[in-house]
């Protein structure tokens, strides 16, 4: 358990580091990410360019730093929007119960019936590429799963006796939601948010890679991988660097989610004893 805790703190530190680098990109990045220097293309690491340069001679490290800005920020922002939409609908659905719940769940079922990547690609294809479309596509394709889990949690908590107790004491619906239901679904929600941030970063990168998300010259990990696919044979780090960033980001998200999940069910793997 102690080891897990250390890993959790490390993972959290990595995540915060990505965030910090994203926020302070202007201050940290040694070069302009779009400064082309054809004479110096695909150069190896040097004192000027710590990770070398890409096919246009742009500084890899600076592009990575600006890339973490767009990837991580879109991911957090999109997850936040999904959370807001999904949680509101889930709370309402779970709290109301009855036919409104059934109706909302049918809509949820329909939205979940389309594979999420296909959904995102289709929405992006119909709206055209860009940051705004990307956000809309992610929210539209993933609010349903979010709201379903929130709704199931609410239903579970709602059946507990202390809710009945609070009701008997004359507490109103909103009060119960705020004071009793939200705190009790917080931990499962955190796990969900963590995994969702991870998958959103992947979606953003994949869409940018396909040319449907952010567009060049924006600096994004997905775009960097797309740029690298013709040149990585000559200089491998152009591919490795953004891929490693993505992997590291997902790894830290997975470790955080694991730790939270362990906290969630203490009895995981703990077997009968007496």
């Amino acid at each position: 358990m102690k080891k897990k805790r250390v890993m959790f703190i490390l993972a959290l530190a990595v995540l915060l580091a990505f965030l910090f680098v994203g926020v302070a990109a202007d201050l940290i990045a040694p070069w302009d990410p779009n400064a082309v220097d054809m004479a110096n293309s695909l150069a190896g690491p040097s004192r000027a360019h710590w990770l070398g340069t890409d096919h246009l001679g742009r500084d890899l490290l600076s592009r990575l730093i600006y890339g973490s800005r767009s990837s991580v920020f879109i991911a957090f922002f999109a997850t936040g929007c999904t959370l807001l939409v999904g949680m509101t609908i889930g709370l309402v659905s779970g709290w109301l119960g009855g036919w409104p719940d059934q109706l909302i769940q049918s809509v949820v079922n329909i939205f979940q019936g389309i594979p999420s990547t296909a959904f995102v690609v289709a929405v992006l294809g119909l709206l055209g590429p860009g940051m705004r479309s990307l956000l809309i596509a992610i929210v539209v394709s993933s609010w349903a799963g979010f709201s379903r889990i929130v709704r199931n949690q609410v239903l579970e908590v709602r059946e507990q006796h202390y809710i009945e107790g609070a009701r008997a004491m004359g507490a109103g619906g909103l009060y119960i939601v705020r004071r009793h239901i939200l705190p009790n679904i917080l931990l499962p929600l955190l796990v969900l948010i963590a995994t969702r941030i991870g998958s959103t970063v992947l979606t953003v990168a994949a869409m940018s890679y396909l040319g449907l998300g952010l567009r060049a010259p924006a600096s994004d990990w997905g775009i960097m991988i797309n740029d690298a696919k013709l040149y990585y044979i000559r200089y491998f780090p152009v591919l490795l660097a953004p891929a490693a960033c993505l992997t590291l980001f997902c790894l830290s998200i997975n470790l955080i989610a694991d730790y939270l999940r362990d906290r969630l069910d203490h009895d995981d793997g703990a077997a009968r004893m007496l």
Partner: protein
Amino acid sequence: MELCIQDLCVNFSTPSGTIPAVNHVSLTVSSQQVTGIIGETGSGKSVLGLSILGLLQSNAAVSGRILLDGRELTGLSQRELCAVRGREIALVAQNPATSLNPGVRVGRQIEEVFRLAGESRAESRKHTLELLEQLAFSQPERVARAYPFELSGGMCQRALTAIAVAARPRWIIADEPTKGLDAVVRNQVYDTFRMVREHYHVGFLVITHDLLLARKFCDRIVVMYCGRVLETNTARELFEHPRHPYTRGLIASLPHLGMKPMAGFAPAFTDQPAGCVFHPRCPHAREICRREAPGTVYCGEGSVCCHGFD
């Protein structure tokens, strides 16, 4: 045939400290008699039963010896123990509803025991149906095809008993066979066990907090408290002339004897009193009870572990 337990200790190591669930227990039980181990929840009686089969969790440290007809079970490898389990000593686990696999038909679960004993599929099927009929199931085929959740608690209990007797073991350990069952079904359990005992001549070790079942079914009774044996005697003697204050308290708390509750609560395993473990609740506690643990005194067919009988 004898099952002999010598100076058995079982300690569980947990994050919150070591839990001594069984504390220096020595017992000899004969298959000629039905032996009952009684005590409150948490007295270590179930752990004692499972330790005989070597089925404790990996965080349990067992010391002492368990001998089956002179053969030591505590030193056997897992592989050798697997040959003992079921064939020589069988278990009727507690909570019949959850002790059967929810995803497998009841018949298959019984057949499996015959198959393990080397029978063909057809033979084991036939024997399963015979066994179910013998255990007072009126529609053996239907029960064999059913899943556990389609059966009542009492039926699950009998199905578990069928699994236990299927391999014709020499011993059956029944762990809380009547827990959570209503009075009518408790009587059924008693009848089933009687029948099994007469028909298969197995040695019975019944672990229970159901004193009425113990009195009706057992020849000999062992009283446990806090992982220790406080008193042993023949069932009749024990119920008519209980020696240990704890036994007297247990019997006085029976419904038809006035239902007088015993004062106090059993101590937590991590925080056991010095001296006699029962002294904080004992109406006759003396100075010596607080200081020294009493030794076991043998008299007649029984034994008692109390300073009042030194």
